[in-house]
């Protein structure tokens, strides 16, 4: 065991099985570990406890409307890209009780939810996902009003990031400048090499979790190997998106015929917004018991593709799928920048992979720009 811990910014090497000591240290520190695991033929984020829970030896083949798990030739721990889940599921849960009410003599009493927020360690956060978390930070923490449950979960979360060396077919993080390397916002960031993990220390807390990992300073060979793998990954992006003047492009083309063309294919199923790591729209609903004595106010994920989303007295303002898709894309890539100073898209490709009809937003933008092939 090393007598001292590595400094923040240091690059160290640990053996692959030593990752378990990091898991153990995190659990000892009171963290609930959440990481990638294989469930129902997909790699999803669930509570994990040991290395065997990781999708070791698996990879995912992705394309528009396509996702398949495949066995790899060699046993990589993080040899996949991203699945349908994102960390949003833990920081901004799909269903959250806000408060409850109880009938009383004078009407009703309001009882805030006092459940302490969970303390998570996220294992395997990719560069695009770090960027997505930073996007949601701007929405829920940096504004004039803070979302307290998000803030509490976020501030207590430990982030073990993973640099992507094998981008997928629907990835375009290079276009969005969010990857494949994790540059900031993590406690530890690993690069998986053939036999070892190269580990970059991002915070003193991250260094602390290496206490039993039997680490050693990284050598020139490992550093150059990782650099080369990341450079190769940058060149292997499955897609690209021309981000020049996107807000202006979309605002100036709100009547473009392409919206009708994409609406002919779009099912308005909401998959893209549910898998998106930054989409934050929510509904707030009341759930009462049969007696009507108590009611709960719950926040649930919503989607701008739901017909009720734009309901005002007199009807739904966006009955046409054309208008809903336009709202989604012009927000994601356009007005988001006006609102939060950053694009709502991090280039993870989930909306392309999980779209049941394989709509590809990079292709839609290219069509509105008047470039590339246009599907009918």
């Amino acid at each position: 065991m090393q007598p001292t811990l590595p400094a923040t910014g240091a690059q160290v090497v640990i053996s692959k099985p030593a990752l378990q000591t990091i898991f153990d240290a995190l659990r000892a520190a009171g963290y609930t570990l959440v990481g990638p695991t294989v469930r129902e033929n997909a790699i999803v984020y669930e509570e994990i406890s040991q290395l065997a829970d990781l999708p070791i030896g698996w990879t995912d083949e992705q394309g528009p409307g396509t996702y398949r798990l495949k066995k790899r030739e060699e046993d990589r721990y993080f040899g996949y890209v991203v699945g349908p889940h994102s960390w949003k599921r833990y920081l901004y849960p799909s269903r959250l009780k806000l408060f409850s009410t109880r009938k009383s003599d004078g009407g009703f009493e309001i009882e805030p939810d006092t459940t302490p927020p969970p303390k998570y360690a996220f294992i395997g956060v990719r560069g695009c996902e770090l960027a997505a978390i930073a996007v949601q930070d701007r929405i829920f923490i940096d504004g004039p009003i803070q979302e307290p449950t998000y803030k509490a979960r976020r501030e207590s979360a430990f982030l073990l990031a993973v640099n992507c060396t094998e981008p997928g077919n629907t990835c375009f993080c290079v276009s969005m400048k969010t990857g494949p390397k994790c540059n900031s916002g993590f406690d530890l960031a690993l690069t998986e090499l053939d036999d070892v993990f190269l580990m970059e220390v991002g915070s003193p807390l991250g260094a602390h979790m290496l206490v039993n990992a039997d680490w050693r300073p990284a050598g020139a060979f490992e550093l150059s190997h990782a650099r080369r793998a990341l450079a190769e990954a940058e060149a292997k992006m499955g897609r690209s998106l021309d981000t020049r003047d996107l807000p202006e492009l979309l605002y100036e083309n709100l009547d473009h015929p392409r919206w009708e063309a994409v609406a002919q294919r779009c099912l308005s199923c909401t998959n893209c917004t549910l898998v998106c790591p930054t989409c934050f729209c929510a509904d707030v609903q009341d759930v009462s018991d049969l007696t009507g004595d108590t009611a709960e106010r719950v926040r649930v994920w919503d989607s701008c593709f739901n017909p009720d989303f734009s309901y005002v007295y007199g009807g739904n303002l966006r009955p046409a799928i054309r208008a809903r898709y336009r709202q989604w894309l012009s927000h994601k890539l356009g007005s988001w920048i006006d609102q939060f100073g950053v694009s709502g898209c991090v280039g993870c490709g989930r909306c392309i992979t999980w779209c049941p009809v394989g709509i590809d937003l990079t292709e839609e933008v290219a069509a509105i720009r008047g470039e590339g092939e246009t599907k009918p």
Partner: protein
Amino acid sequence: MTLAQPILYPSFASPMLPQVAAITRTQPESPGVFTYTVEFRDPGYRAAYRFRPGQFNMLYLPGIGEVAISISSDSEEPDQLLHTIRIAGNVTQAIARLKPRSVLGVRGPYGSSWPVERARGRDLIIVGGGIGLAPLRPAIYYVMRHRADYGKVTVLVGARAPADLLYPSEYDEWRKQNLDVIVTVDRADEAWKGRVGVVPMLFYSLRPDPKRTTIFTCGPEIMMRFVVYEALARRIPKDHIYVSLERNMKCAIGFCGHCQYGPTFLCKEGPVLTYAQVEPFFSVEEF
């Protein structure tokens, strides 16, 4: 504006917790439209509560839901909080069943307000169509309280039918305060002796000075589009034309995403916006 929090909640408690308030008075206005006076149960909260003309509250009924309703009373009497509500959806139907002394949840105030300060020293044309007059009434009260600070003030009021006119019993009082109140209806009945026609047509008889006129308008979007058209035709600058927009709202604090209007969250930067802010989207279909 910050409000004193009377009840100590845990630091991670939701900013969407309402305050309990009681209905102290119910006033029928027109068919399907009622005004409810509400009073916060907590005396400290009641005393600290302030709002600006044009802002709104979220009204909540347990087991039913929440709805955004503009405040229609005098901002200088914030302990008398009036909400004029058209009975339309689930929540407003449930509110309509409430009797005086019933309780409901209230949180707010939210949103931007009519720029009564910026408009000081200027002529005002206040244009309300149907229920759209409700969020304008606090601005009218404000102007009457500070009448000497404003030039010529014209109030254009319209409704579908004479029975749908909002606050008709107050128009004479407004006129006494030197407001020029002009009223029109889309469809007259036998008893109606006033004007017939849509609200924007009332502009035909106006000769506003474009250098010193500010417009406040709220009503159906189609009406506001034509009000803006008439105002622009009279060379009134885009940033002195204020519209109040309505969209679905679930949270009122910029998190739920429902009220987005292009880059604008209507609950935060809106509902009151200048025409300059909304122009790129104002005529886009299904926006």
